[in-house]
């Protein structure tokens, strides 16, 4: 049975985590993601869960590390400056091969920046978000419904690959209210966490969770093995495609920008321009193969993003610069309009004809 309610994106994230069996949330307030923590604070005590407002973002991510080491599903959320503070913990989680779900509802930056929506933490999220060789799985929802669905999936992927899965949203998606079907229950992972620190009870060898290696050969080997795993994870790369079969101009956009782009593409089609959209749903792994395949037919690409141009580098790499790639962007908390995107499409279509 469908069960529709009206939710903010931030609330949908929180509810999805609860339905995925997450009973341990460690947070610290920051606009525009505070509703995640507020929702958890209200709900967790009623379902015998733990909501804890930590003394800082750094403390919160390390509490996630501790809880995850004990084998439970744990989550933290923040917005851009807070994620920077968490980056040390993200690296330690990766070094310990621990699953976790971390939410970044991006705001304008750099520095304290602003509280309006942004996508300028793309590099930070997709290049790892901390020191050392590692990756996060990065999921980019574009509706409140996907905030819900992808959060449940994030817990699954995190457990399956023993990685941090990040939900990369923006202030607009966090704050907007939309109807959501919340009837989907999360499947509490069947992956036995034999590595977890659950107490030996005198019946097994003790587990150790650690990211310090005194022998550099051992550490190198561990990095090799971790990257063999990442090669497997590359296979989950996924897109949503909109009118791309006959498209001459392909817009690449994620999150709220993809929705704005769809409006522009509808307008372009009315004007006889064959435009389409590829929306990466996973930002790491980036859908390189899908982009490469599209470049075989399309004549030009436009990347729409709320940054000075970050995802554009992945698009150019994926298509090996075989087609022109334009940037249509706003930043600092500004959101592109459908008209701005339409103008970029028209410009690319004109250039391609001449």
């Amino acid at each position, binding site marked *: 049975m469908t069960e529709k309610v*009206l*939710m903010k994106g931030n609330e949908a994230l929180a509810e999805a985590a609860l339905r995925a069996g997450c009973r341990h949330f460690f947070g610290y307030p920051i606009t525009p993601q505070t509703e995640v923590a507020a929702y958890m604070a209200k709900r967790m005590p009623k379902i015998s869960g733990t909501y804890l407002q930590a003394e800082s973002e750094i403390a919160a991510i390390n509490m996630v590390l501790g809880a995850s080491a004990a084998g439970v599903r744990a989550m933290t959320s923040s917005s851009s400056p807070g994620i920077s503070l968490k980056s040390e913990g993200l690296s330690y989680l990766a070094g310990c091969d621990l699953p976790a779900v971390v939410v970044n509802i991006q705001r304008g930056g750099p520095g304290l920046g602003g509280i309006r929506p942004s996508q300028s933490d793309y590099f930070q999220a997709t290049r790892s978000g901390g020191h050392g060789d590692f990756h996060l799985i990065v999921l980019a929802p574009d509706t409140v419904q996907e905030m819900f669905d992808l959060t449940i999936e994030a817990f699954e992927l995190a457990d399956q690959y023993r990685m941090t899965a990040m939900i990369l949203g923006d202030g*607009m998606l966090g704050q907007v*209210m*939309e109807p959501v079907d919340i009837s989907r229950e999360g499947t509490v992972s069947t992956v036995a966490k034999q590595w977890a620190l659950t107490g030996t009870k005198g019946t097994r060898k003790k587990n150790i969770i650690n990211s310090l290696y005194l022998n550099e050969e051992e550490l190198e080997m561990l990095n090799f093995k971790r990257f063999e795993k990442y090669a497997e994870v590359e296979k989950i790369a996924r897109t949503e495609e909109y009118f791309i079969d006959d498209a001459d101009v392909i817009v690449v956009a994620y999150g709220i920008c993809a929705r704005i782009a769809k409006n522009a593409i509808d307008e372009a089609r009315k004007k006889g321009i064959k435009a389409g959209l590829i929306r990466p749903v996973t930002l790491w792994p980036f859908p390189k193969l899908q982009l490469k395949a599209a470049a075989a037919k399309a004549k030009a690409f436009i990347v729409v993003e709320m940054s000075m141009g970050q995802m554009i580098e992945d698009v150019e790499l994926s298509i090996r610069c075989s087609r022109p790639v334009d940037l249509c962007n706003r930043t600092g908390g500004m959101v592109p309009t459908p008209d701005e995107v339409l103008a970029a499409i028209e410009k690319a279509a004109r250039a391609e004809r001449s």
Partner: protein
Amino acid sequence: MNYSRITIFAGHYGSGKTNIAVNYALLLRQSHKKVMIADLDIVNPYFRTKDSEQTLRKFGIKLISSDYANSNLDVPAVPGEINAIFDDLESYAVIDVGGDDRGACALGRYFEKLHTNDVAAFFVINMYRPLSREAGATIEIMREIEFAGRIKFTGIINNSNLGIDTTASDIINSLPYAEEVSQKTQLPVVMTSVKRNLAVGLETYSNNLFPIDLEEYQWQKLPN
């Protein structure tokens, strides 16, 4: 309709207070010359009364809003100008309060001024919000707001909706819920607010329909 000189809209976070408040101010303006609307929201940094600034200006309604609303400065500020509402006895005013008990705190400091004025205080409810789906939970939120805001509600507004997807049957299904909240609190349901295009056809189900227009945002149109 008899209007109180000051009408307060408060309720659960995301229940639709701002939309109702703006539409109510527009309604008031049809019969009164001097109408003001004050944004007392100190909680929510996005989607503020200020989004309707153009509409309000067009109809000659004075907007009292923090200079920092919809800006990058995330400070809980209340404009001093709000005192005009209490002191200008010629005016009719709408107060849009922030969500939940935390938002209602800002109202508490006006306790004495409110008690010497002609005030209606409406509690906005939405059955489709996840934390106010049952009458019991809704009333719990209402009591928290009354305590924090130092007010007593005088009526209920049933604003049950699923945003842009709301259908007539969603409204009809919410009527027993609103009735239950009303019975348990002994407060009348003063209005059932619905998107204007749904109002026709719902008249047989409700005798207090309040058709409203919503602020449109450009990314809301979502092609499927």
